[in-house]
């Protein structure tokens, strides 16, 4: 389970709309509870590092950007607990490409942006054996 405030969900949707028809991406900064659930405190937008021609269907967060995000989180006593990206004109469901490139533990939030408007938003976590993503419950916090 991942807990986000309404404002975080709105921020992710707005980022997806802003970057449409390209994919947007960013980090989810927060903390892991003892039972492994995640609580998001902040979204951390990142510029999609993929080349212009690929940006409509691919996103990339470079290792340097992740390290920057991790340092930012650490300074606040927090962790990177996941990431988000948009699927322009596609459902909020992970692709095979997403699965092949996924890391365990982290939440993968996907927002579907249909004709420029944020629509469905869902969260996913990859199975330990890399076989598939399972949908993760989103709890709305304060």
């Amino acid at each position, binding site marked *: 389970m991942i807990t986000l405030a309404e404002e975080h969900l709105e921020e992710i949707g707005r980022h997806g709309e802003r970057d449409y028809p390209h994919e947007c991406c960013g980090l989810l900064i927060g903390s892991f509870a003892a039972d492994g659930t995640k609580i998001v405190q902040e979204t951390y937008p990142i510029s999609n590092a993929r080349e212009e021609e690929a940006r409509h269907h691919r996103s990339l967060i470079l290792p340097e950007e*992740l390290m920057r995000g991790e340092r930012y989180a650490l300074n606040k006593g927090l962790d990177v607990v996941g990431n988000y990206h948009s699927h322009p004109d596609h459902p909020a469901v992970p692709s095979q490409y997403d699965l092949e490139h996924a890391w365990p533990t982290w939440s993968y939030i996907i927002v579907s942006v249909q004709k420029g408007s944020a629509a469905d938003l869902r969260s996913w976590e990859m199975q330990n054996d890399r076989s598939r993503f399972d949908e993760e419950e989103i709890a709305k916090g304060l």
Partner: protein
Amino acid sequence: MSVKISIPTPLRRYTGGQAEMSVDAQTAGEALERLSATYGDLRKHLYTDQNTLRHFVNVYVNEEDIRHGDGPATALKDGDTIMIVPAIAGG
């Protein structure tokens, strides 16, 4: 050579929450092999079925990307720090 490997957050569930591990190794590749021999469940997240490092797995020796050095054959010195840093790709 005794070196430290820093383990990224998403892989710490396989190391009992440990953020670092000390290993004896001559090369970066050997150090990663030691890590994945100790914590077998994280191996598939670092290596492909062909036993090569996954391309979104970035390995730094003292902040220098091993791709700019000799790759997994990059030689280590005593006290070096190895960082495994994810790239995050979506599509």
